C-alpha cells in the first residue's frame, strides 16, 4: 500500500515535471534571425489530419521550387530559408503558428480558407499579405478594400462563372443553357456556398435553373442526394464542390443511380490525384476544373527533377512530383519568389511584410516572363496592381484517364462583368460591416 502510494506520488511528480518541461520548451523558442543575404520564410503547412494528402504536395512543391532557386544562386544572391509550422488545417492552430513566427512572416499562405478568414484581422494590423490561391475571401480581389489579402488566382466566383461558361460551350453556346437544370452538390460551409451569387446572376441572364444540395462535413455519404438529383430533379448537369476525400464519393453514387459521368464537372478543389484515386476505375472520364497545367513536362519541373532530386534534396517522394497538388506548390513558389524579387529590387534587404506585399502588387507574369521561368502553360499570364489583387482568371478543364489528368480545354474565362460586380458589392458590404462606429 505504502509502495503504491509512493509510485503514485512519483508519477505525479513526473507529470508535473512534464508540464514544466513542455512549457519551458515554448519559452526557449528562439526567434530566428535572417542572415545578411537570406530571406527567412515561415510556412504554414498541413501534414496531419484529413487534408494532409493533397496539402502536403502543395507545401513540398513550394519548398522544391525554393530549393531550385537557392541552388541556382538564389534571388540575385539571396537565398530563401524556410521553416514549417504544421497546423493540420485547424484554425486555432493556424493562429498559434502565426503568433509563433510573428514578425518573421513575409507572406502567409495557409492553403485553408477558414484559416485565412481568421487571420485576416491580424494580417491587416501587422501589414503582412495573406494569400490563398483559388480560395480564401473572393472579394479580396479588391486590393483597396483588402490591402493585405489576395486570392492570387481564380477566386471562387471566377471558378463558378468559368465552369458555367464551360458547360455553355459544351452545350453549344449560352443560348442553349435556357431551360437546362444544373444540380450543385457542395459542402455546406463558406467554401461550398461562395458560388451561390454567381449561379443566381447567371441563371437569370441565361435562363437555366439551378438547385443546391448542401452536404454536412465530412460528406462521406451522399446517396440520397444523388437519388434525388438523378431521379426526381432530372438534372442535365451536375457540378460538385466537395472537398478532400468527399470528392470521390459522387463517382460511386452516380454509377448507382445511372447519372452520366460526362455531365458531371468538379471544382478545381476536386481536381487533384488524391481527390479521386480512391474511386479507382469509376473515375475514368471524370472532368474537373483546374487553374494550372498538369504533368511534369514544364521546364521548371524538369529542372527541379534534374537539380533538386538529382542532388537528393527533394522535399517529397519523387513519384509525387508533377501531381496536381505538387504543381500548385511550384506555381505558388514562383509567385512568392517573384514577390520577393520585386521587393528586393524596389527596397533592398531586409524584407518585411509590407515590402513583399508591394512586390506582390508589382508582379507581371507575361508570356515572356513565364517562358523565362520555364512555366509557360503551367499558369496563365498574371498581373497585379494596388487595386487588383488577382482572382479573375480563366480555368482549364481536365479529364482523368484512369492514370493521369489530360487537359481537354483551352483557358475558359469567367464572365468578368458578373464576377466584378459581385466583388464590388461584397467589398462594399465588408466596408460597411467593419467600419461602423
Amino acid at each position, binding site marked *: 500500500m505504502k509502495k503504491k502510494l509512493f509510485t503514485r506520488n512519483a508519477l505525479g511528480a513526473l507529470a508535473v515535471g512534464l508540464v514544466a518541461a*513542455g*512549457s519551458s520548451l515554448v519559452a526557449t523558442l528562439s526567434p530566428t534571425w535572417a542572415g545578411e543575404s537570406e530571406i527567412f520564410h515561415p510556412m504554414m503547412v498541413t501534414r496531419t489530419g484529413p487534408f494532409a494528402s493533397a496539402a502536403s504536395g502543395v507545401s513540398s512543391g513550394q519548398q522544391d521550387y525554393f530549393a531550385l532557386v537557392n541552388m541556382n544562386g538564389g534571388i540575385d544572391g539571396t537565398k530563401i530559408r524556410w521553416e514549417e509550422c504544421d497546423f493540420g488545417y485547424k484554425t486555432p492552430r493556424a493562429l498559434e503558428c502565426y503568433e509563433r513566427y510573428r514578425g518573421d512572416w513575409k507572406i502567409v499562405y495557409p492553403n485553408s480558407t477558414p484559416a485565412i478568414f481568421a487571420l485576416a484581422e491580424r494580417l491587416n494590423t501587422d501589414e503582412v499579405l495573406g494569400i490563398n490561391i483559388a480560395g480564401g475571401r473572393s472579394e479580396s480581389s479588391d486590393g483597396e478594400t483588402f490591402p493585405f489579402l489576395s486570392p492570387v488566382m481564380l477566386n471562387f466566383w471566377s471558378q463558378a462563372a468559368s465552369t458555367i461558361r464551360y458547360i455553355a460551350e459544351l452545350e453549344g453556346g449560352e443560348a442553349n443553357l435556357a431551360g437546362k437544370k444544373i444540380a450543385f452538390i457542395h459542402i455546406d460551409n463558406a467554401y461550398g456556398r461562395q458560388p451561390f451569387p454567381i449561379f443566381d446572376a447567371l441563371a437569370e441572364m441565361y435562363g437555366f435553373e439551378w438547385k443546391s444540395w448542401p452536404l454536412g462535413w465530412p460528406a462521406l455519404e451522399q446517396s440520397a442526394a444523388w437519388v434525388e438529383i438523378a431521379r426526381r430533379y432530372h438534372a442535365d448537369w451536375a457540378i460538385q464542390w466537395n472537398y478532400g476525400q468527399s470528392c470521390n464519393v459522387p463517382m460511386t453514387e452516380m454509377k448507382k443511380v445511372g447519372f452520366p459521368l460526362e455531365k458531371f464537372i468538379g471544382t478545381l478543389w476536386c481536381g487533384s490525384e488524391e481527390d479521386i484515386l480512391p474511386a479507382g476505375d469509376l473515375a475514368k472520364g471524370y472532368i474537373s476544373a483546374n487553374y494550372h497545367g498538369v504533368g511534369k513536362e514544364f521546364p521548371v519541373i524538369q529542372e527541379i527533377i534534374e537539380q533538386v532530386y538529382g542532388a537528393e534534396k527533394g522535399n517529397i517522394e519523387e513519384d509525387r512530383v508533377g501531381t496536381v497538388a505538387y504543381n500548385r506548390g511550384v506555381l505558388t513558389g514562383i509567385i512568392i519568389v517573384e514577390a520577393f524579387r520585386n521587393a528586393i529590387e524596389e527596397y533592398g534587404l531586409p524584407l518585411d511584410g509590407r515590402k513583399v506585399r508591394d512586390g506582390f502588387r508589382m508582379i507581371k507574369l507575361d508570356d515572356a516572363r513565364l517562358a523565362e521561368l520555364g512555366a509557360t502553360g503551367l499558369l496563365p499570364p498574371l498581373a497585379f496592381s494596388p487595386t487588383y489583387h488577382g482572382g479573375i482568371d480563366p480555368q482549364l478543364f481536365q479529364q482523368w484517364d484512369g492514370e493521369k489528368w489530360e487537359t481537354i480545354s483551352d483557358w475558359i474565362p469567367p464572365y468578368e462583368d458578373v464576377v466584378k460586380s459581385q466583388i464590388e458589392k461584397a467589398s462594399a458590404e465588408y466596408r460597411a460591416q467593419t467600419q461602423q462606429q
Partner: protein
Amino acid sequence: MMVEECFPATRLKKDMALLPRRIDKLMMIAVLVVALALPPFLGDYWLKGVMIPMLILSISALGLNIVTGFAGLISLGQGAFMAVGAFTGVIAYGRYGIPIPLTLLIAGAMAAAVGAVVGAPSLRIKGLYLLVATLAAQFIILWVIQRVPWIGAGSMVTINTPPVFIAGLHIDEALEQYYFALCVAALLTVFALNLTRSRVGRAWMAIREQDVAASVMGVSMLRYKLMAFMISAFYGGIAGAMVVFAWVGAASVQEYDLDLSIQLLGMIIIGGLGSVLGSYLGAIFVALFPIAISIAMHNIYAISGGDIVSAATLANAEHLLFGALIVFFLIVEPLGLSHLWHRFSGSVEAKLSRFPTTNQTPTRRRPM
C-alpha cells in the same frame, strides 16, 4: 479528536468560505500576481498564441465543469454554446452597437436560453444517452446558425466585428485583450467558486452522487438540472463572444465544431471533474501540450537537418504522443490534475497548520 470536529459550526463556516484553506488562498494570490504582473514582459506570441486562447477556453471549460463535473450531467454541446455566444455577440455589438459588457451578458443569456432547451432531456436521461442528445444539439445549433438568413452567416459563414471599444478604450493590443480576457475570467471564476459552495452547488453534487435520493430529499430536478445547463451555456456563450472580441476578431461557424466540444470535455476530465482549478489546468494541458510537443518536434527536425525523419512523420508523431500523454495522465491521476495539487497542497497545509485540516484530500470517488 480535533477541536474543529467537536465544533461542527466552526467547520461549516470554514467550509463555506470561498477558499477554505490557507494554502489555496496563498496560491490564488500568487497566481493572480503572476497573471497581472507577468504579461507585460511576455511577447505577443505568449499572449495571443497561448495565454488568451487558454483563458477563453478555461472560461468555457469552467462552464462545462459546472454541468458535467458538479451536476454530473455529461455534455458534448459546449462548442455550440460558444457559437451561439459568438454570433449573438457579433450581432449585438456589430449590428446594434450595444456596449461590450452588456453584449457579453446578452451573449451569455442567449446561450443560456439555448442551454435550457438542450438540457431538457437531462430530466429523463443520463450518461451516454445524454451525451448523444447534447451531441445532437451541437449539430443542430450549428446547422441553424448557418441556415437562418437573419444571422447573416450566409454564404461566408463568417462575420467580422468592428473595432472593439470598451468605455471609449480601443482594445486592439495583445496586452489589452489579455487583461480584458483575464478580467472576465476572474469574475466568472469567483462566481463559480461561490456558486459551487452555495446551496445550489450542494444540490448539484447531490444530483451527481444520487439523483433519485436527491429528488426524494426535495432537491428539484427540473430546477437544478436546467440551471446547471443554463449556467454552463452562459459561460460557453461568454467564452464564445470573447473569442470574437479578444482573440480572433470574427465569428465563423467552423471554429465551434464537434472537435472543440470534445476538446473541452477532455480538458475537464484531465484537469479534474468538479474542480474549478481543474478547468484551468485542463485547459492548459489541452491547449499547451500539442504546441509544446510541436515545438519540440520542430527542434528535433531542425537539429537532425531533416535527413533522418520526414516532416510528416514528426507531425504525426505529435498526434501519437499527445494521445499517449492523455492516457498517461489519466492512469497516473484518474481524478484529474487538480487532484495532484490537492495532494501536494494537502501535505504542505498540514505542515503550515497546527491542526491537520479537515478539508484535505477529497476522497476517491466516481465523479459520474
